[in-house]
Each structure stands twice: as C-alpha cells, then as structure tokens.
C-alpha cells in the first residue's frame, strides 16, 4: 500500500493556483487543525469563523511583521473540497509572498502537500469519485477551453452519469435474464427476450460511440500532434513560422508532458496543435545519427498527422520518395505539402501529383507558398478538416486511457452477451458476461475498491488542487 494513513492525519498546505506571477495566489490548508494554524498567522480570524465566509486582514509572520493583505475563507469539515477542515488564503500573486507564507505555515506544523494529496483526501473522504478525481488533473492541465470544459463536465459527474446510465440498462437486461431463470416455472409473462436484445444492442452501440469519442477526448487532453518531415531547405522552418506567426501562437520551449520535440503550438477548432519537427533530429552528427533516426521514428509513430514537405521547384527527388515510402505504414493522416507552387507551371504540377499518386499511398496533396502564407493556410484547412472528423461533442466523452481500456473490455462482454442471448439456451452465461461488464463499469466509476487503480490515478496528480 503506497498511501500510509499516518500522514493522512497531518495538516497539509500548498499553493492552489499556478506557480508564478499572477493577480492573486491561493494557498490551501487542509486537515483537522488547519484553522488553528491559519490563526497563528491571521490573528484577525475569529476562533469560530463562519464556513464559506471571507475574512479580510493582515497576515503577519511569527515576529509580528506584516507579510501581505489577505482574504481568508474558512470551510468547516464535510463542507470543503477535501471533506476536512480547510482554510484558503488569497494573497497577492507574488511568488516571494506565497513562498514566505508557505514557510510560515510549515513552521506552524502544516506539511507541504504531496502531489495530488488534496484530491486524494477528497476521494478518501468520499467527496469525489474516481472519475471526478481523474478529471481534476485534466482540468488543471487543460490548456484550451474545450479541454477545460470537458474536464469540468467530468468533474461535475458527466462521465459518471453516462456510466451509470449504461450500468442501468445492463442491469435491466440482467434482471430480465435472471427472472427468466429463477421464475421459469411461475408462468410469468416476462418482457420478451427481443426487448432484452434491443436494449443490449442499444447499449452496445452507445458504448461503441463513447469508445470512438475517446480519440476526441484524447485530443482535448493531449492535443493534436503534427509531425513535419522533409529534406533540408525545402521550406520547413518557413512553414513553421508561417503557421505560428499568423496565429500569434505561444512558442513554448519544451512541452513538459512529452519527450517529443515540439517546435510550437497553435490552436485550431479549440484543439491544441503541437508541431513537431523530425528533420532537426536527423541532421545530427554521425555518431548520434542512429539515435536520431530512432527518435524520429518514435515521433512519427505518435503523430496524428505527418506532413511531408517538398520543394515543388525541385520535383520529387529520390530522397523524397524514400521519405514518402517510410511513412507508408503510419496510422497518422498523411499530407504532402508542396512548397513553391508559384515556381512551377500546371504541367509540372500535374506530373508531380501523378508521381505521388503512383506510389499508391493515401496521401492528401496540398500546395502553396511559404512566402504568402498560402501553404500554411492550406495546411490549417486540412488539419481542421481532420479534427472535425473526430467526435468532439462537448459532453462527457472519454479522455483517460484507463477509462477507454475498461470500457473497451466492457463493450466486448456486452457483445458476447448479445451473441449468447441470440441462442436462448444459456441465459446464465449471458448474465455472466453482463455482470463482468458491470464490474468494469464500476471500476471506471471507482465503485470497486482496488488499491492498484488508486495508486495509478494518484501518481498522475499534480500538486495544488
């Protein structure tokens, strides 16, 4: 057991807002005794404050020196996020002030919270279920509005509701199968077996849709990865800049969550697009060439779309053909972007297109120029089209790989049950399959106790919320 209960008695404290400079910073203190510790710094708090009421005053350190003007909210136990007595201190958004306050709190006995510890406590105290706990993480990490909305829906129980609905349908079917078994001698008029079949087919279809939506859910959470491939000097950097500049996208140095090299990010259709340059890896010194190729392959295999850039004026070279062929087995959407279209005539363009089509690989071919941004905008149109193809209906689509795997297994059990049900000789086996499906759905909802899931989920949490 990785979560020892001794430490769960501690009062914990941490910054609940992102690190760095902002308007305000919120420090959360949780656990029995939080109020007492907070009062050590915030003398203005009454000994029995009202829950959910905001108090204003000066926060002073142990020596009585004023640190900051703060707003303090008190939450009594059972009425807070964690379910424990909680105090939230809103101070000015200066990292130095926040750090100082946390140190003061620590001196008074509030231990810095572990990664995910507030959420862990909220779950342990029955304030949120496992699905909600997982979505806290997504909410914090969402960088686009759609992703945040979806996480919020999950936090409010959207996915739990959907799972409950599926569970309800399956349970209805099990009940009818069971009645047919246990009351077969009573001459009861049970709902005809065809009704069970209809309902199972409906459940199977619904689950299938949720599974399909996983791809969409994953996009909301992880973004859409576009890998750019091409020989040197075909216009890759120009294209990259055109893509990024026009959208005034934030160029991040390194994405924290992935080891892939990300050159920049932009947002299309509410989805974060991560641009990855693989060629940069290839142009390394000889001794690391092999490592470079390995990494390039890995990047390509994870990409949602691969964009192969050609210099139109140079035609399709042998090296280009090699690159094209190396993309053949990839699952990603494949796009050939022909740069410098303005430098070739229509005949040359037709020949070039034919040459690519002859390879028999399903490439989508676009063209344009990096000079006037026409290539960038064609590419964006193409990527937008791809994103729209994926189910993104705002509801509680699946976004966690764990949920996807469990639901997929549950789906398989429902499908087996349907097959068995068609031949009426083994209702007990159909019921068995359906009960296995229900257990898996319980697992998605965190309704069954499994310390391994708990470990897995809480390992992913970041501190703060």
């Amino acid at each position, binding site marked *: *057991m990785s*979560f*020892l*209960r*001794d430490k*769960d*008695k501690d009062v914990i404290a941490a910054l609940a807002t992102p690190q760095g400079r902002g308007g305000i910073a919120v420090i959360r203190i949780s656990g029995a005794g939080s109020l007492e510790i907070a009062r050590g710094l915030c003398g203005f708090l009454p000994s029995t404050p009202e829950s959910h009421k905001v108090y204003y005053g000066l926060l002073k350190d142990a020596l009585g020196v004023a640190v900051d003007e703060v707003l303090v909210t008190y939450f009594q136990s059972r009425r807070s996020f964690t379910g424990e007595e909680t105090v939230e201190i809103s101070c000015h958004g200066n990292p130095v002030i926040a750090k100082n306050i946390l140190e003061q709190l620590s001196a008074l006995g509030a231990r810095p919270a572990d990664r995910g510890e507030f959420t862990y406590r909220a*779950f*342990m*105290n*029955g304030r949120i279920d496992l699905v909600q706990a997982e979505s806290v993480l997504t909410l914090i990490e969402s960088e686009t509005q759609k992703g945040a909305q979806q996480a919020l829906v999950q936090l409010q129980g959207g996915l739990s509701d959907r799972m409950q609905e599926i569970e309800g349908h399956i349970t209805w079917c099990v009940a009818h199968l*069971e009645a047919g*078994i*246990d*009351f*077969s*001698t*009573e*001459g009861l*008029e049970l709902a005809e077996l065809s009704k069970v079949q209809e309902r199972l087919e409906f459940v199977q279809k619904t689950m299938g849709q949720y599974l399909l939506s996983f791809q969409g859910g994953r996009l909301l959470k992880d973004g859409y990865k576009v890998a750019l491939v091409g020989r040197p000097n075909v216009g890759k950097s120009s294209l990259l800049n055109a893509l990024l500049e026009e959208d005034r996208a934030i160029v991040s140095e390194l994405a924290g969550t992935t080891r892939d090299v990300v050159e920049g990010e932009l947002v299309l259709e509410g989805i974060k697009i991560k641009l990855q340059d693989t060629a940069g890896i290839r142009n390394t010194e000889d001794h690391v060439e092999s490592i470079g190729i390995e990494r390039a392959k890995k990047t390509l295999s994870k990409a949602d779309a691969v964009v192969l850039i050609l210099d139109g004026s140079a035609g399709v070279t042998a090296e280009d053909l090699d690159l094209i062929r190396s993309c053949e087995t990839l699952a990603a959407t494949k796009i050939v972007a022909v740069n410098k279209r303005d430098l070739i005539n229509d005949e040359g363009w037709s020949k070039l297109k034919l040459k690519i089509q002859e390879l028999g690989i399903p490439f989508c071919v676009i063209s344009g120029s990096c000079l006037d941004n026409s290539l960038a905008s064609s590419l964006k149109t193409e990527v937008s089209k791809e994103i729209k193809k994926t189910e993104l209906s705002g509801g509680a689509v699946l976004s966690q790989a764990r949920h996807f795997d469990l639901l997929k297994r549950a789906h398989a059990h429902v499908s087996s049950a349907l097959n068995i049900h068609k031949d009426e*000789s*083994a*209702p*007990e*086996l159909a*019921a*068995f399959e359906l*009960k*296995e499906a229900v257990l898996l759905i319980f697992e998605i909802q*965190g*309704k*069954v*106790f*499994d*310390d391994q899931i*708990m470990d897995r989920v809480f390992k992913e949490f970041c501190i703060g919320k």
Partner: protein
Amino acid sequence: MSFDYDIIVVGAGHAGVEASLASSRMGLSTAVVTTNLDRIAYMSCNPSIGGLAKGHMVRELDTMGGQMGLAADATCIQFKRLNSRKGPAVRGTRVQNDKDLYSKYMTESLLSQPNLKLLQAEVKALLLNGERCEGVILEDGSYIRSRSTVITTGTFMNAVMHIGLEQTPGGRVGDKASIGLSDQLAEFGFKVRRLKTGTPARLHRDSIDWSKTTAQFGDEKFYPFSFKSENKPRLPQIACYLSRTTQQTHQIIRDNLKQSPLYCGIIEGVGPRYCPSIEDKIVRFADKESHQTFLEPEGLNTESIYLQGISTSLPVSVQYEFLKTIPGLENVKVIRPGYAVEYDFIEPTQIWHRLEARTIKGLFLAGQINGTSGYEEAAVQGFVAGVNAAHSVLERDEFVLRRDEAYIGVLIDDLVTKGTQEPYRMFTSRAEHRLILREDNSIDRLSHYGVQLGLISGQDAEEIFRLKEGRASFLSRLKSVKIYPNASTQEKLRGIGSPELLKSVSAEELLRRSEICATDLEQFDVEIHPDPRVNEAVEIEVKYSGYVKRQLELIAQQKRFEDTLLPEDLEYKAIKGLRTEELEKLMRIRPRTLGQAQRISGVNPSAIQSILIYLKTQHPNTKQGSKSEHPGSFRSTDSSLET
C-alpha cells in the same frame, strides 16, 4: 454445573431435524423439544422439496451428511429437473413428496438416532445466565439444562392466523403459537420484527372434475438428491394437474378485497414478493387475465390436493365462491381453507455466520426465525447451527461456508450481512459465483466437510471417494485420448450431426462441441465411466470450462478480501476516514471478513481501504488471504494425474 444434554434443539421442523441429527451424529447428547410429536418435519405448505437454487442446497446438504435429500428421494412421487433447457448451473431438481411419508421418514430417522431424545413439551423461555444460554424453561416451570441451545421455532413465535377478518393465535392449523420466547429476546435487546406468509386451500380429491384440467407428468429420468439414493424412485409416480383462474375469479376477489386482512390493514407483517397471495396477484397485476395453478396431490393415499399459486386469506365463503370459478373446481369441497400467518422473526444481522446470537453465547438460531422462507433454507441453516452448536461444546473452530463454496454460504452471508425485509428465499441469481455452484459438482465442492465433520463415513465416504476419483480420472482420460480425422471418425460424426474433424483433437476438445455428449464418445473408443453421475459431471465441467475458469479468476480476485478476517472486537471508532453511517453499520453488523464488509450497503470503497490499512498497522497478525486452490472444482486434482 451439570447439564441434562449437550444440546437442546427447540422445534422439530426442517431446521430442527437437521440440527439435532447433525449434533447427535457428532456424538453429542441432543434433546429435541417440540410441541407436537406428530408433526415432525411437516410440510406445512407445498408438498414438495427442491426447485431452482433450493435443489442446489438440498444436494449441498446431502453431500455434507444432511438428511433432507434422503427423505425427499425416498418419498418422491414426482420428479422434475427445472430449466432443463438452460445451462447446467441453473438447472434445479424439484420433487413432489408424499407429505405424510416424508414426516414419517424423518420421525423414524430421529427415533432411531443414538444420542438423540425426542420430548413433547412447550418451551416458554430461555434459561439465561448473564449473557449465556444454559438451556430452556418449559411451560410447567421445569428446566432443561444444556451447553448449547438451537432455536428453530419456524413461524410459531407470537403467531397469528388470519382467515378473512378473523384471527386465531397459532402458527399452523391445529397447532398453538409459542408465546414468551420472542418477548424474552426482545427484552434482552434483540430487534424482533414481523413477517407474513400464506398457504392456499386444500381440496378434496373426489370433488374435482379432473377432465377440465391438464395433466403434467414428471420427467422420465430420475436423478436423486442424495448420492446415497438409488437412481430409481421407490414410490409410484403421479401427475399434477394444471388449471387457470378466470375473469370471474378475479372479479370475485376484487369485489371482496375489503374482507382481506391484507388489504384492510390488519396484517402488518411483510409477505414474500416472489410468492404473492392471489389477492396480491390480482391487485398488482391487474391487466393479467389469468393465473395458472397446479393441483398437486399431497400424497399417494391422501384425499388432500394442494392448490399451488392460490394462497389466500379471504374469508372461507369468498374462497368457496372464487374457487368454483376455476375450471375443474365447479363442485369443489374444501378440506381446509387457505390462511395467512403472521409471526415474529429475529433480525438476522444480530447473529454470526455460525448462527450463534451475537449477544447470547450458546444460543443458535436457524430457519424461519431468521427471516427465511422455505423448507430447504430452513434445513441447511439447521444443519449449520447443529454443527456449530456441537463445535461450541467441543471448543472447535466455527463452521462457516464461503459464498464461493456453497449456496448455503450465500444464504447465511446474505442474512447476517444485509438482514431481510421479506421472507428470504434462495434464488440462483443471489449467488455471484453461480457457474461453479452447481448441483452436479456439490460433491466436489463440499464432501470433504462432511468427512471432516464425521458426518460422512464408512461406505458413504468410500462412495464419495469413488465418485471424485472417477471424475478426475475420466477427465484426464479425455485429455489424453486423441481422435483422428479418419474415414470412420468422420462417418460417426456425420451420424451425430456434428461437423467433420479438420485435424486430430483430444476427446475433451470434441466433448466441448455442444451437440456431443459424454456417451457419444463411446463410439470413438473412449472408455466412459459406468456411473452416469461421473460422466455427466465431467461433461458439464468440460463444456463450461471457459466460464468456470473466468469464474475462478473472479473468485481469486475477491479471495484476499474474503480471507482477511476482521477481529470480532475490532475498534471501528479508532479507524480514521469512516463516515458516521459506515461506522454505525460496521459496528452493528461486525463483518467477519473484509469481503463481507464490502457487501454491506452504504459502506464505500474508501472505508474498505481505511479498514485494511488500520488492520495492517494495528493488527499485523490478522489472517490475510492466502492463495489456495478452489475446492469447487475437481480439476485441481487432475493436473497431478496428468503428469
């Protein structure tokens, strides 16, 4: 202190009989006290034993040395295997019995049993010494002292019979209610509640026009409950007869509901939803035009016909009126009208799995007093209570069956964990591990307990050994014998209507085909076992094997929780993270294992984790789940035979 008997069993119904036979056979002096020696193991309601899930329990009981299966086999007058067209796990054996012969069989079993004495007397109270039960106090004020006491009073505690708006004290026509016992238990702090049950009219055989009914015969093939019984019924076999209620029947009942004690608020006790009275059926399923009823003879030489499915507590005149509207009953004569009984039961969350009261040592409760319904539910509890009463005297460990071992385990665990709101009847759907809790493998699952308890010995133990050995060796033979796709094989397969072989397979693989049964294998030169009980069990095991494997995996997952015992004095208040509701329930029910704690409604996964962590830190020596082979399958032995 001197005792008159090691064990006193109060009541001689289906629970009392099994309890007293078990304890006396284990060598303990046992007295059975009953108010009426003429009604031993009497079938107060339907003259039949078994049914879905109930038949399973009778077999389980038989495998461990109980008596019910033998009595039911010996007095069977119609045999049926229910759900025969569904899978083997949910097939159930049911027999009609000659109720007088059944009672006679059990009476003789008790009379001929060494260490067992039958007494006719009424028990007024328990002889309590502090928190210990030391015997019983009779009506005349005399004491009988014992080391353990088993109460099996059925529906008799504070019982009231209802016919129309009239009430008579009593738990069965012709027998008195037992007054005093439940009040004493209530005073001691037990939660006592009220249930209701009902029985239909008994009709005069000669007053029925049988030509208007449809005869329903039993199965040709007889599979006895008991492994000790012969595979042929001893008595002549009879038919039951089907008829149906009519619109007129329903109208008469609707017009007279105001005279029904159920519908004018006289009866407070909760009746069984799965066995509603005809009044209930007509009110609750108003759009149903007709209900079926079986006319079941209560024996070979009796005039009495039981009218299955038409239990009622309407006044006698109304009963006559509506009965005459059922085809065949136009001129019916009623021997005894239907009636309802209300009685006290003890909320069963107040007893341990061993069926001993939590707050009174040496007091065991079994049967309808624990809120169950049915002869079979009563009998198996009687057995478990009798064994544990004996173990308590002998200072041995408690005898508790797990949910993955037996329906009996499911029954008792449900009762002591969840309690019951209505008379509890067993269903196959209550057993989450039902695919391995089958009638055919009850011997493989449970016979070792019978042997350990000393209730299966001598020839019986040899017979068990022979059956288990036979199954294991037949299965290993099936695995090793190869069948080749030659011309003669293909021809035989065509004859059976089974697809030809594409490559050679083992006999086991061939048997997995749904159209092939064990006896077909003889054609392929596979030596089959002369005992059909061996072949059939192996056939089922083979055909079910994929699912059995998955079921065993699920059991293994659950096992570490089931095997983590919780100390009876666990300090729940000291466990952090339990909510008030959880704390209240855990302290009241005091689950025996972590697995049981999980099944208490309202106890959340987070609470289970808290308990587990508390145990690990505070009770590091608590017995925790270990991995062992599941006894429910004889496959465990065949691996050794294979090598």
